[in-house]
């Protein structure tokens, strides 16, 4: 059994983007939300309706299946690994991720892969997201 990132209290999100800043800060040494491997989306004209899209660590990831060059490969325990050298920047992976959780790095023109490290959780002020024990069989 391993821990994977999950949205446990979507309705408690205040839209501060602290999680996205944390991910970019720790993994990319970048002060931005745009390097984060998850996204807090808000909706036009719907006050305060946020949808949080983290990588669910699929066992058989659609994104890896969609990658024509095997730059993305399934990672043991869930999710994917990226071999940047193999990436042809086609974007098929992000298209394949139905929740649009797999983010695109517009600067490097490649996907931003979640490491399931949980740093975003540590900087969420309202317990919206958590690292949750997920039995392998249910992934």
């Amino acid at each position: 059994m391993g821990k994977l990132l999950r949205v446990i209290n979507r309705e408690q999100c205040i839209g501060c983007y602290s999680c996205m800043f944390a991910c970019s800060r720790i993994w990319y040494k970048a002060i931005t939300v745009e390097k984060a491997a998850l996204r807090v989306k808000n909706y036009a004209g719907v006050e305060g309706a946020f949808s949080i899209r983290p990588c669910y660590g699929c066992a058989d990831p659609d994104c890896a299946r969609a990658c024509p060059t095997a730059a993305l490969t399934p990672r043991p325990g869930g999710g994917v690994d990226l071999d940047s050298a193999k990436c042809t920047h086609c974007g098929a992976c992000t298209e394949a991720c139905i929740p649009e959780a797999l983010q695109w790095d517009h600067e490097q023109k490649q996907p931003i892969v979640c490491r399931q490290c949980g740093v975003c959780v540590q900087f969420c002020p309202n317990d919206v997201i958590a690292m949750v024990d997920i039995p392998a069989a249910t992934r």
Partner: protein
Amino acid sequence: MPVFKMLDIDLTTGRHQVTDVSAQFDRDLGGTAVATSLLLDTPADLDPYAPEAPIIFATGPFSAVYPVATKTVALFRSPLTGNLGESHAGGRLAMAMYGAGFHVIRVRGASPFPCYVTIDEDQVHLHRAHSLWGSSALAAERILRDHVPSSYKRSIVRIGPAGERRSPLAAATVDSSRHFGRLGLGGVMGSKNLKALVVSGGRYWPIVEKGKYNAFYKKLYDAVVKSPAMKKYHDLGTAMNVVPLSRINSLPTRNFAQGFFEGADEISGETFATRHLTQHLACGHCQTGCIHMATLRERFHPEHHQFKTFKISYDHELIYALGSNLSISSPEEILRLLLLIEKQGWDAMSIGVTLAWAIDAFQAGHLTPAHTDGLVLNFGDAATGEKVLHRIARGHNEFYRDLERGAAFCARKYGGQDSAIAFGGNEAPGYMTGLYAYLGYATGVRHSHLDSAGYAIDQKALNEPKPDDVLTAELYKEALWRMTLNSLVICLFARNIYTKEAILEGLDALGLTGWTETRLHEAARRAHARKLQYKERCGFRFDDLVLPGKLARVVSGAGQVDPARFARQVAAYRDLARADLAAAADVADAPPSAIPNPR
């Protein structure tokens, strides 16, 4: 070393250019100080609605970079007061400007047709917006958020119909329920035919020293989330002030007739939270989430169970301006008024205080049913209040058109000047704690309670009395300190977290070295002096400041306020400012490179 850039947009030609303004940030720190220097570069005699009159949006070195540095400051010539227009708004604008790569956006000129401007990093475009003209401030955001694509987080600044009508009470609304509320930025945008700005981008600063930055960040995060410093704001919010202020005779009631409101419990922070609070929202990169959203569900069909539901934000100032000050003790009625105000895009405080003046003037006989076209204006009558707002929006007659020009203008035209509760032309905020609240509104560079927090001095002085001159010096000192906070453009709710030491540590962690306490203070003095310099150039005189007549009669939290005592302390404040003006004059006009830099 971080680079600071300014985007200049000329609405007349549709052209734009980018300038490196790092030297100005190195000299002035950022935000309000940099914007003031830029405003001083404009000709003195420009009408607020002249095409050449600039709107300067500025952020600071902490914007988007550290928690709760969420504000953007806008400077312009105020159509309400005729001098310094300065307003601060949260939302995602500071974050989006940072992402776009601009710490300053200066808008000049006027479009020959209704337009909106999109800024996506270097892609800056002016678009026709006839089909958007006339839309409410709320609808404009919904439409633009759908219509304008971006890969990045966007921020949308727009005006409602009040701004299009060039009302000097018009706000510019930012994202969800944040506003450049005060002093008429909405009217200035309207005068430029500028309905909206949409800002986005993915640019960022790399972290120079990871250990230093992350350690400082964590310290701030813990202070914001885990310490009691921000508890008030994510609990009941500023609405928690309503009842305590009423208990100490400091909650403006029925146009400042008294400070005790008999219905305070019914419109308290607790009541709003219990009955209507449905969610807290946050500005971009603020973990506090102080935006209190109320929901109002109403049945709209008399026979069927059909309902409408709307969400609207509230805080102390809104509850005072549309509640106690109009003698309205129903949260539902306050929320309905606020929805109309949000849609039209007025500053809630200014329109509320102007309505309160109108009721007072009606009851004193300065206004008659001939002016109001039959409406009888009464305190406590929210239904008529709604009708008045609809009539202003429709431009029903001359009187209603005048109402959206503010209390001071109306009082000059119709009478009842004693009851126009405005300082320097700006309608007063919701604290009648005593002399120092009023003195702060009068002497503050933007005539705001946030300039120097005089209300806090009044309350402290109740327990610990001090001579007036000492307290005035404290007021002045606070006004200067806030120049630093407003140059960083942090949210003032986090003022207890951003101490001098924290600020210096934060600057250093970004590689902005060479800042010292002395240098911060000198930059603050210079900024404050330059604001006064600008105001005086526009005709502002300390000696013209008067206490509205009614406030000399009513008993505030700290007792009755003697107009002569008020005038003496205005003069004392003026003298402190004069000394700084003289001291700052040497460096005020020097080019950035001539400013001594210890590096």
